[in-house]
């Protein structure tokens, strides 16, 4: 199915999960914040939450800043 990850259109498997998305990109869970359609999704839902076509996923993190 098609959805957006960090603003870019992506094609992913229909049964893909957020956990799978992070694993595919080698991103440890503790280091990222996940937004699905502008809502923060906490870690315990990353395996089970069903993604839908046209969803917008943001994978963000805290970095150095002034």
């Amino acid at each position, binding site marked *: 199915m098609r959805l957006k990850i960090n603003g870019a259109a992506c094609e992913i498997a229909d049964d893909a999960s957020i956990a799978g998305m992070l694993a595919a990109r080698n991103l440890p869970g503790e280091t990222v914040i996940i937004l699905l359609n502008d809502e923060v999704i906490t870690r315990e839902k990353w395996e089970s939450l069903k993604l839908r076509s046209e969803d917008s996923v943001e994978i963000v993190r*805290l970095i*150095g800043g002034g």
Partner: protein
Amino acid sequence: MADKFIIGGKEIESRLFIGTGKFVRYDLIPQVIMAAKAHVVTVALRRVDFGNPGENMLEYLPKNVIVMPNTSGARDAQEAIRIARIARAAGCGNWVKIEVISDQKYLLPDNFETLKAIETLVKEGFTVLPYMSPDLMAARRMADAGAAAIMPLGAPIGTNRGLKTRELVQILISEINLPVIVDAGLGKPSEAAEAMELGAAAVLVNTAIATADDPILMAQAFGEAVAAGRKAYLAGPGASRQFAEASSPLTGFLRNE
């Protein structure tokens, strides 16, 4: 009587806030925080760059510091509000530094949009510290809207030019009944001390420390300067004069008349 520094009901142990941007290595940050004896540090939120994800900087922040996310990247109030909500939902606590900038040349903050963001975020229970351009009316409105402090710039971000806004900051310190924290542009410890001598409650320093040849030593210098400046302010400096006034009486000289 102890010189307490309280923001949003919380006692802050250091009048030097540290920004965590621009460090060549994250592992410098905990050493800098320790050298400066800092208590509040700022961080930013960005999308993960999948090609170059980098390390998790949170691992480098000591457990006892207050982590204050900024809303850098926000070009208007709505974007700032969104970033603040995301940071809090992700576990960052209630503090937020509002930074709304659409001027890319000088990175000067947009006081008008900043005020709008304060109004919303205060109602949602945030402890709001707005980065702002030192304008008295804007500061008054921000204070009335419930900001926990006012953070006027000393000079544009990253310029290391010092307290260029000295006169206006002095007015804010005199007229606004909130901690005034000079944020941005301070390039040397003496400039931080200057802000503190005027009566600033604190300063926020990032570039001057992160880009020094020895950031840890520079952080220590800034920490000492901020403490010295605060003591000078509390000690009540003597007046400055145009003409000299001798240190000892002008009588009893050891000389033949």
